[in-house]
C-alpha cells in the first residue's frame, strides 16, 4: 500500500513537471513576447533588449527553464505586472479565499447530494426518485451566470436581505458567502446527486442485496450495512472532481460577486496578460487537479479492496 501511495505521488510529480515544461514553452520560449508583456507593448527594441539581458533571458533555454523551475519550487513566481508586487503576495491570499468558498460549498453539496442520491436510488422509478431527478436535472441545467443574476435580483433588489457583493471589505462576513455558495450549490448538487443515485440503484440490484432482503433482514439494515458503503465508492471520485472544479472553475461566481478569489485572479491575469501571474495560477490549478485525482485514486483502492494492486 505504501509503495502504491509513493508511486501515485511520484506520478503526480511527473505530471506537474510535464505541465511546467509545456507552460514554460508556451509562455517563455519567445522571450521577445515576455519583454513586451512585462515592460509594455510600445517599448523600443533597445529597451526590451536591455531588459532581457538584465533579467537573464539571453541564457540558453534549458538553463532558463531550470532556473525558473528552481524559483517556482521555492514559491518565487516573479513579480506581477498588474498588481505591482510579488506574485506570491497576491496569489496565496486569493487561493485561501477560494478554499474558504469551496469548503462552504462542499459542506452543503456533499451531504445534500448524497442524501438525495441515496433516497432516489433506493427505489428506482418511485415517485420520490422522479421528483428528485427532475429537480436535480433542472437546477444543474441553469448556468451559473443566469442563476447568479436571479439570486441577486431576488435577495438584493426584491427582498433586500443579503449583501450584494462579497468583497469582504469589513473582514470575513459569512453573510457575504451566502449568495456565491447558493449559486455554486444550485449548479452542482444535482450532478453529484444523479451520480450517487446511479451508483445506489446499481448496488440495489446486486445479488447480495437481494439475498439480504430475501433472507428477511430489515430494509433499513440492508441499506445501512450492505448497500451504502459500496454505493459511495463512485460518488467519492465525483466529489474529488468537484473539489477541483470549485478551486479553479468558479470564475463566473467570483467575478459576479466581486469575491477576491483565485478564479477572479486567474481571469484578471489572463486578461491583462500578466505572464508570471498566469504561470503561477496555472501551476496552482494543475496542482489542485492532479492532487485531488491522486487522493481519489488512493482512497479508491482503500474503499474498494478488489482493485488494490499490491
Amino acid at each position, binding site marked *: 500500500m505504501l509503495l502504491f501511495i509513493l508511486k501515485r505521488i511520484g506520478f503526480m510529480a511527473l505530471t506537474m513537471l510535464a505541465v511546467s515544461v509545456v507552460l514554460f514553452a508556451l509562455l517563455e520560449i519567445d522571450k521577445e513576447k515576455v519583454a513586451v508583456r512585462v515592460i*509594455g*507593448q*510600445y517599448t523600443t527594441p533597445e529597451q526590451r533588449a536591455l531588459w532581457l539581458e538584465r533579467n537573464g533571458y539571453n541564457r540558453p533555454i534549458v538553463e532558463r527553464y531550470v532556473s525558473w523551475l528552481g524559483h517556482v519550487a521555492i514559491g518565487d513566481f516573479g513579480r506581477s505586472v*498588474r*498588481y*505591482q*508586487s510579488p506574485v506570491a503576495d497576491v496569489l496565496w491570499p486569493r487561493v485561501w479565499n477560494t478554499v474558504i468558498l469551496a469548503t462552504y460549498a462542499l459542506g452543503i453539496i456533499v451531504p445534500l447530494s448524497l442524501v438525495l442520491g441515496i433516497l432516489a436510488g433506493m427505489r428506482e422509478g418511485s415517485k420520490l426518485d422522479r421528483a428528485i431527478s427532475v429537480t436535480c436535472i433542472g437546477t444543474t441545467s441553469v448556468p451559473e451566470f443566469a442563476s447568479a443574476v436571479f439570486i*441577486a435580483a431576488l435577495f*438584493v*433588489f426584491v427582498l*433586500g436581505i*443579503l*449583501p*450584494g*457583493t462579497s*468583497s469582504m*471589505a469589513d473582514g470575513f462576513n459569512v453573510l457575504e458567502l451566502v449568495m456565491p455558495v447558493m449559486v455554486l450549490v444550485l449548479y452542482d448538487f444535482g450532478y453529484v446527486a444523479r451520480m450517487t443515485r446511479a451508483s445506489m440503484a446499481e448496488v440495489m440490484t446486486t445479488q447480495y442485496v437481494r439475498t439480504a432482503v430475501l433472507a428477511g433482514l430489515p430494509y433499513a439494515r440492508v441499506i445501512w450495512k450492505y448497500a451504502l458503503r459500496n454505493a459511495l465508492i463512485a460518488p467519492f471520485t465525483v466529489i474529488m472532481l468537484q473539489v477541483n472544479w470549485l478551486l479553479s472553475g468558479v470564475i463566473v461566481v467570483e*467575478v*459576479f*460577486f*466581486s469575491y*477576491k478569489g483565485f478564479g*477572479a485572479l486567474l481571469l*484578471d491575469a489572463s*486578461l*491583462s*496578460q500578466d505572464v508570471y501571474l498566469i504561470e503561477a495560477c496555472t501551476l496552482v490549478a494543475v496542482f489542485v487537479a492532479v492532487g485531488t485525482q491522486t487522493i481519489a485514486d488512493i482512497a479508491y483502492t482503500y474503499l474498494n479492496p478488489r482493485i488494490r494492486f499490491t
Partner: protein
Amino acid sequence: MRDQKEHPYVPKLKQNFAERKIDRREFLRTSTLLGVSAVAAYEFAGRIEGRSLLPKASAADLPKGGHLRLGWRVPELDSPHTFAWGGSEFTRSTCEHLTRTGPDNVTRPWLLDRWEASEDLKTWHLHLRKGVKWRNGRDFVADDVIWNLQHVLDPNTGSSVLGLMKGYMMNEDGSAVWDANAIEKVDDHTVRLNCRNPQLAVPEHLFHYPLHILDPEDGGVFGVGANGTGAYEVVEAAIGQKVVIKNTNTHWWGDPVHLDSMEFLDLGDDPNAELNALISKQVHGVSELNVEQLPLLANIPHVQVYDVATARTGVVRMRVTEEPFTDPRIRKAMRLATDCGKTLELAIQGLGVKAEHHHVCPIHPEYAELPEMTRDPEAAKALLAEAGYPDGIEVTIDCKPDPSWEIAAVQAMVEQWKGAGINAKINSMPSASYWDIWDKTAFGFTGWTHRPLGVMVLALAYRSGVPWNETAYSNPEFDALLTKAEGILDVDARREVMAEIQALMQEDGPIAQPLWRKSFTAMDKRVKNYSPHPTLYYFADLLAIEPA
C-alpha cells in the same frame, strides 16, 4: 478686496452681463479667472439678477466623523503627475491643487489666495495662500509650486499637463520650458508665469487633475504615508483592491473636515457589482452609473441618483501615422459614415446630445454652431474610392466594455459604417489593457472627460506632440489657430476662431465623435454635501455622512 488691481476687461465684463450679452455662468467664470474673487463675482451677479447666489456653506450642521466608502476602481497611484485614468480620486484631498473648478464650472483659488493676469494675458501672478502647511508641518512656499510646475513641464515626466501648457509655457518643439524665467519666484508667496503666448485658462489648467501639488522631497512619487497639504493621508493602498485615506485633523484651513476616513473599494470589471453593493448598503456611492442601470434604482428608498450635463464623450480616434488613416479623406469618410443621432439613441438612450466630430461641446462658452454634418454613406464611399479604396476598407477597432455605453456606441457605429463599405471588427479589451494602448493603437474608441473650456480639450488632445495626443495628429494650421484662440478673452471673438478650428476638425481631424453624454451617479442618502461635478469628481474634504 478692492485694493488689488482690477483687470481692465472686468468693467466690460460687468457691463456685458448687465446687458445680458453673456450668461451668468460665463460672467462668473471669466471674472473669477481674471482675479475677481468668487465671493465678489457672485455678489455682483446677485445684484444684477436680484438674488443672492452665494452658495450655502453650512458646514456647521453637517454630521462629524464616520467612514465613507465608495465603489471605485483602484489603479496604481505612485505617480500622480502622470495619471491618465482615475487615480486623482484618491489624491485630490491628500495632495491638493492650486485651484478648484467647482460643480458650477467656476474656478476658484485653492492653495492660491488669488491670481492676477496682465492685460495681454501673458503675465500671471499666482499669490499663494498664506498659512498653508504641509502635513509634516513645513510651510507651503513658492519653491514648492515652482518645483511641481517644472516637474510636470519636463518632457521626461510624461505628464499631460504639458499638453495644456505647451502653447504658452514651452518652446516651439516642446522640448523644454521656453524661457529660463518662465516660472519666476517673486517672493516666498508669489510665483509669476511669464508666458510665450497669451493664455486665458491658466487657473483652469492648474486644476487639471494630474497637477497635484506634491512635496518636492518625495520626488514625484506618491503612496502610503506620502506628504501633502490636504487633510487626508493615504494609509492603505493595494492595486485592484482598495485605497483608504484618513483624516489627519491637520488641515490648513482650520475648520476640521467632517469624515474620519474614506475608502475606495475595487469591485472589479462587472459594472453591476458596484450597484449591488450600493443597494445592499455595502458602499455609500458608486463611481458612475450606466444608463441602463437607472431604472433599477428607481424604487430604492435609500439611494439618491444624481445627474449632470457634461462635455464628456467618446471619440473614434484614428492614428494619423498608421495606414489607412494617414489619408485625411479616409478619416472624413469615417465621419460621413457615422450617424450621430442613431448612435446617441442606441448607446445612451438619447440621454445626451449629438456631437459634431470636432470635440467642442455646446456647453463650452466658445462653441460655434456649424451646419450639421449628417450621415452620407455615398459621399463616404466616394472619398474612400478617391483615396484608393474603391472596395472599402477592413479595420479593427479597439474598445472597452466598461462603461457599457462605449461598446454599445461602437457596435452601433460599426453597423452604420458597413453602409459605406467600411468593415470594422470589434476588439473589446478589459479597461486596464485598453488604457495601456489607448495612445498607441491605430484605431480605437477612447472616453474623454469633461473640461470647462473647448480650448482646453483641444490643447490636451490634438496639439502637435503633446503627451495625450492619442492620434499623433499634427497640423500646423490647427496649432496656430488654437494658440490664437487661447489668447482671446472675449468669448464672441474667440468663437470666430473656434468656428475655423471646428470646421478644420470636421474636414481634416483625426476623430469621429458621435455624442456628448449626461453623467449619472448615485449615493446613499446618508451622504451629505455632495453635488455632482461635471467630471464626477468629489471632494473628500467637503463630504459628510450621517450616522446609520
